């Protein structure tokens, strides 16, 4: 598989007051196009920093990041916004739906700003929410809200889907259903999906597993036989 996402010796240092915190010390890895990649590590390992930088929400201190042929690390703020806008779909741990927009509208909110969006209703249908489209987030369960969030990310037709602990706020069954949805997206639509989690049980479902610890990529392995989500237990 081609190297779609490429991290080259990425370093990130935060300055908090007079203290420098090394969030990422040296991260080098690649993710192939259409892969389902799980980045796993304990709390404080630098997972989120990694995701922030990849998602164009934060800049790095050293190193290079490529998405396809473009060097994301060289983008300015405006270019980063455009990058987020057209290339990235984001799924948050706490869904982050706009509370006074219906499910459909939340999806439309994202679709509005894209060049080539998918039909919002279609996407919602594809995540199994055709009957809840007119509901406000407050009227939806957590799983449903996360589905809406995923639909919102997908509707942008992004090159890369980034998920930050997508099951973190969900119960076991719902979490599984969401993971299943993400795996299906990757399998059926060839979407490159990167999931960040502290739950190493999820590595079984991934095409590629990247382990992070203390701001370092400790291992990068290709899983030649990923397990369907239904079979994973944790």
């Amino acid at each position, binding site marked *: 598989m081609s190297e779609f996402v490429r991290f080259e010796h990425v370093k990130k240092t935060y300055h908090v007051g007079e203290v420098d915190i090394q969030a990422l010390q040296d991260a080098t890895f690649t993710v192939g196009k259409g892969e389902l990649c799980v980045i796993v590590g304990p709390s404080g390992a630098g997972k989120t920093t990694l995701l*922030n930088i990849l998602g164009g929400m934060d800049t790095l201190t050293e190193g290079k990041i490529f998405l396809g042929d473009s060097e994301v690390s060289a983008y300015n703020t405006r270019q980063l916004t455009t990058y987020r806008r057209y290339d990235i779909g984001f799924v948050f741990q706490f869904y982050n739906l706009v509370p*006074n927009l219906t499910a459909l*509208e939340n999806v439309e909110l994202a679709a509005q700003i894209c060049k080539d969006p998918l039909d919002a209703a279609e996407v919602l249908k594809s995540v199994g929410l055709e009957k809840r489209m007119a509901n406000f987030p407050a009227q939806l369960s957590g799983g449903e809200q996360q589905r809406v969030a995923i639909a919102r990310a997908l509707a942008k037709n992004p090159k890369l889907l980034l998920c930050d602990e997508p099951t973190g706020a969900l119960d076991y069954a719902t979490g599984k259903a969401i993971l299943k949805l993400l795996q299906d997206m990757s399998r059926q639509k060839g979407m490159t999906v990167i999931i960040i989690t502290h739950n190493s049980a999820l590595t079984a479902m991934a095409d590629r597993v990247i382990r992070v610890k203390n701001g370092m990529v400790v291992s990068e392995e290709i899983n030649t036989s990923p397990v369907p989500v239904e079979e994973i237990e944790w």
Partner: protein
Amino acid sequence: MVRTMLKSSLREIRQSLGRYLAILAIVGLGVGFFAGLRMSQPDMMATGVAYLREYGLYDFQLMSTLGFTDEDVDAFSQMEGITSAEGSVYTDFLMEREENEEIVITARSLTDTVNHTELVAGRMPEAPNECVGDARYFSEADLGMTVTVSPNNDEDTLDLMAYDGYTLVGLVRSPYYLNYERGTSSIGSGSVAGFVYIPLDGFDFDAYYEVYLSIDDVADAYSEEYEAQIDSLKSQVEDLTEERAQLRYTTLYDDAMAEIQDGEQELSDGWEEYRTEKADAEQELADAHQELLDGEKEYADGLKDYEDGKQQYEDGLKEYEDGLKTLEDSKAQLEDAKAELDDAKAQLDDAKAELEEGEASYNQLNTLYQSAVQLAKATSTGTPSALIKALQSGASSQLNTSVDQALKAQGSSLEEFLGGWTQAEESIGQPLTQEYLDGLSAQLEQGRADYEEGLADYEAGYAKYEKGRLEYEDGLAQSEDAKQELADAEQELRDAEKELADARQELDDGWVEYEDGVKEADEEFADAEAELLDGEKELSDARQELADLKNPTTYVLTREENTGYVCFDNDTSIVAAISVVFPVFFFLVAALVCMTTMTRMVDEQRTQIGVLKALGYSNGQVMAKYLFYSGSAALVGSVAGYAAGSYWLPWIIWEIYGIIYGFAPLTFIFDPALALVSFAAALLCSMGATYLSCRVELSKAAADLIRPKAPKAGKRVFLEYITPLWRRLSFLHKVSIRNVLRYRSRLIMMVLGIGGCTALLVTGFGLRDSIKSVVDDQFAEITLFDYNVSFQDTQTEETVSAYLENVGWERESALLVHNGSVNVISGDKSKSVNLVVSSTNDLEGFISLHSGEKAIAYPGSGEVVVNAGLAENMGLAVGDQVELRDDDLGSLTATVSAICDNYVFNYVYVSPDTYLEQQGTEPEYKNLYLLAHEGEDPYQEGALLAEDDGVSNVAVNEATRSQVDNMLTRMDYIVLVVVVCAGALAFIVLYNLTNINITERIREIATIEVLGFYQNEVASYVFREIFILSALGSLVGLAMGKALHAFVMAQVQIDSMFFPCWIAWQSYGYALVLTLVFTLVIFLALKPKLRKIDMAESLKSIE
């Protein structure tokens, strides 16, 4: 409160200082505005009351048509409840300000017990011809000038003013003139420019014009107690006034009668005396005349004598001169004779000498010869000749020796002898012989005889000459005497001449004296006669006067009739009225801001509350923290706001009112009740809001609180049910609309705040429009004439035509009118207004009588047209009866036929017929309305019009217009204050709301940023709803503003002005634009805040 909690609270304040300050500021502003506007009226009132008390404005002002005497004044001061009574005089007079410029000044006598003047500059008068002047009219530079009483003033005024001019020694303010109005006058321009106070001695008067009373234990002005005091005394004062006036009438009547009788007696005595004296004087003059004639005759005689004497003298002189000439002739003759005599004497002397010489020669010769003879004889030589011959020949020496001997004997010698002989013969030229000697002797004899004869002749001639000389000398002496005599005569004549000249002079003087005497006598008698005739006229006048002496009319005026006093009450109540409406906005907004801020804060700290509760803190303890937070902010804010607001706002308003009043610096009063009320209200608002916000949260279980709060559910808004419309909206607009309607309290706060801001702006600009329109409407739509020329005397058609021709004006550009000042009385209300009576029964082209678009006909008989302001003020309606009472206390009753528009001053219009019917006299047409010529400078034309001697004043409307304009321009400051207030309001509301909006939705904003919204899209996503709310609020504000403006205008009715309730469409525009500008500024101020939002926020868990 537990210490930790207190610490936590204080730390909370430090951490969210912006929010804390926001509460503090809004509470401060709210309280400041509330207290400031609320205190303005009491402050002003306190200032006014203190001022009136300090300077002792009168309580009663009594007037009578007959005036008051000192006894009357005493009687009033004896009244129970009256502290003091003091008489005073006053008059309006024309003062010469500059050349051709006369202005109307009211002169009042200085009083000791009431109406004390407040000295602003200079000193009080010390001499009767000194005065202190109106500090509003005169400036310090005027000190030392002479306030000159123009000779154009009428006789009564000139009589009353004891001096022609009064030196201005000080500037004063008077409680009698509390505001800028100085009233109107029947003289000059009809508008009083200022006042002067003159010592009572500076007036020459018979009776006081008015009496001022001060009452005992006077209560505060404007208070109900004061009104009660006045009410309780008024009827007694009225009774006494009437009684004293009647007494005065009787006295005057009796005095006048006695005077007339005395006058009659005096007059007849006068005539008698006149006649006697005249006869005496005539006799005296006749005597003097006779005397002069006698003198004349005497003089003529004297003159004749003199002339005779002169003739005589001249004759004498001639005679003398002739004599003198004769004498001179005889003197010459005498001198000639003397010369002749002298010549003769000389000849005689010569002849005598010759003779004597001849005789001597002869004697010599004879002697010689005789000797010869003897010798001859002795020698006997014959004859001598022979002897000589012999001798000479020497022939006989003997002879010669004998002869020589003989001769030697004689002492001679022959030689000598012969020499002598030869010499003698040589000298006689012939031989010496006897014959010759005989002949010589005979010759000598003959010569002697001739000489003797000549001598006798000479002597006779000399004797004759001597005689002639004596005669001449006598004549000369005689002539000298004559000369002396003549000189004496001349002296005498000269004396006589002088005497005559003196006599002439004396006579001439006598004549002049006589003529003068005659003239003098004539004049004196003419004067005496005139005086007597005057006396007669006076007497008949006095009789007429007595016949005219009417029963007196009296007036008992209170402070309610004093313009300044009443206006002050009205004007301060405007402030009070405004203070009711305006602060409500601020308080409401303050409450809402507190509410939203505190709700937000409690929401934010939900988890913390939950934790505290979980730790076992009671609800009260938890709430105390938030109550402390908002309460302390409110307390500090309200105290600061109260202090600042209650100082600055009244100060600003007083400064603005200073244009009208400004008699004293503002007294600041502290109203503890108001302070407590505002503090309480502020605390209630903020802590109440906090309590309400907290109560909901605190009622929940701790576990609930620790869990994140479910976001407020989205809701469909009513617009969504209008599907066609909703569909048309772009997606993001839908979001905004839904957001707008999401929080109702915020919507209300926004609409109220922004609406309030717009409303204030509309009101502010509207105030300006209404006031500005006064000037334009008044001078472009109503007052069409450009000049008002006041004449000293009543004008007729002829005099007006002559005047117009003189100044080069067309008759059709002029209108003759009667202008007067009258009191309009309706019910118990009275008001001084301007009366206009048109000589043509029409005002077309000069004053436009209209009401709105509708033209009004000139009032007919028994009708009156009044202006709207007056009608409103007096509560008049068409069909009402009003009484018009003028200065001379004549009165006129008419029915209101129409109400016309007029903004500056109050006017009533009646027809000449009405005036004539009710007043019994023709109106005095002393004023001429004139239209200006196109393109001419109005002030120059005005000056030209004033050049005529008969003109006492020319009012140039352009000048009035610019004056009013100037005054009203100051109102712009009020507008500015309003705009600033509005701006402050808008800022607070917008900033707070937007700030809360952003903080509250920080997660949402971060999310859409993560979704890839550009900065501008994020900004418009957030601010669009603010703009929508602003637009909505300002639209509501326009409507609120119109209502507020109407309300405020209803309060702002300044006495002499009527403001139309009108707002220009531009003002709505300005208000809208300004509101949007405020919104935009807030947008720009808060935009950076959006940029600072960290997208990582979106990843955080909900707190």
